[in-house]
């Protein structure tokens, strides 16, 4: 139960962060990707702010053997730069550039009366399903 409450708190802080930084505005995200247009570097600073806090916090957390409420840290130890990783990332970027939505802002925007986001999330799930078929994991 405590884990679920902590996840709710973490999710809420994440949603606040996405809204305050205006990452729930897909046009602002597209303006970051549009380096040949009226470029808006804000997204780079969102990442910088997030990385500064996360890197410091993660480093401290991982000095401990396990998390406060769990038996282990669920972290992948893979290091290979394989084809699924790079092809997947490349396709994700194309979809991101077509829409201005990555998964977090798309999901959060469903609460902002944004019908586009509902279509987006439904199509993301269709994509998950198709990728699972490819891997034989559905």
């Amino acid at each position, binding site marked *: 139960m405590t884990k679920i409450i902590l996840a709710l708190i973490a999710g809420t802080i994440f949603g606040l962060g*996405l809204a*305050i930084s205006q990452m729930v505005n*897909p046009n602002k995200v597209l303006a970051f990707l549009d380096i040949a247009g009226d470029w808006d570097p804000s997204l780079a600073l969102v990442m910088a702010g997030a990385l500064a806090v996360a890197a410091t*916090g993660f480093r401290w957390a991982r000095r401990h053997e396990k998390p406060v409420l769990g038996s282990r840290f669920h972290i992948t130890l893979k290091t290979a730069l394989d084809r699924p990783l790079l*092809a997947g990332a490349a396709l*994700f*970027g194309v979809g991101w550039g077509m829409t201005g939505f990555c998964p977090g802002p798309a999901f959060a*925007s469903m609460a902002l009366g944004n019908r586009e986001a509902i279509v987006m999330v439904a199509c993301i799930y269709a*994509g998950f399903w198709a990728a699972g078929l490819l891997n034989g994991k559905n």
Partner: protein
Amino acid sequence: MQNFTPVSALLGGALIGLSAFILLWFNGRIAGISSIMNGLFAASGPNRYWRLAFLLGLMLGAAIWQQFAPAMPTLRPHYPLPLIIVGGFLVGFGTRLGSGCTSGHGICGIALLSPRSIAATLTFMASGIATVYLLRHVLQVSV
């Protein structure tokens, strides 16, 4: 660069980093939204509930902020629906195949100095920039 909002970007980003820290420190989990979304239906039992709670929080947090900033522009009534449909599919397909998105690779993975996440982030940034360039400056789609 007249739309650059450095202060709110850094502040919002710091909150996202704090959220990722809380989820890892307490629950031992990575705040990667694509895998949390996928696991909502793929996982079972308690592994489903914390994901549901996180995703509900994601919507709650955005909705709370909208109460303070009602003028926040988020809606694009005339954006071409085919772009959303095909783009949404590619986001889902690509993030599952590539094991992560902007949060899982771009923030958590890079914070852990994972070479896979650094490579994935450089790749989706490059293909995102190339896609917007193609749409806006070559095909002249007015988006």
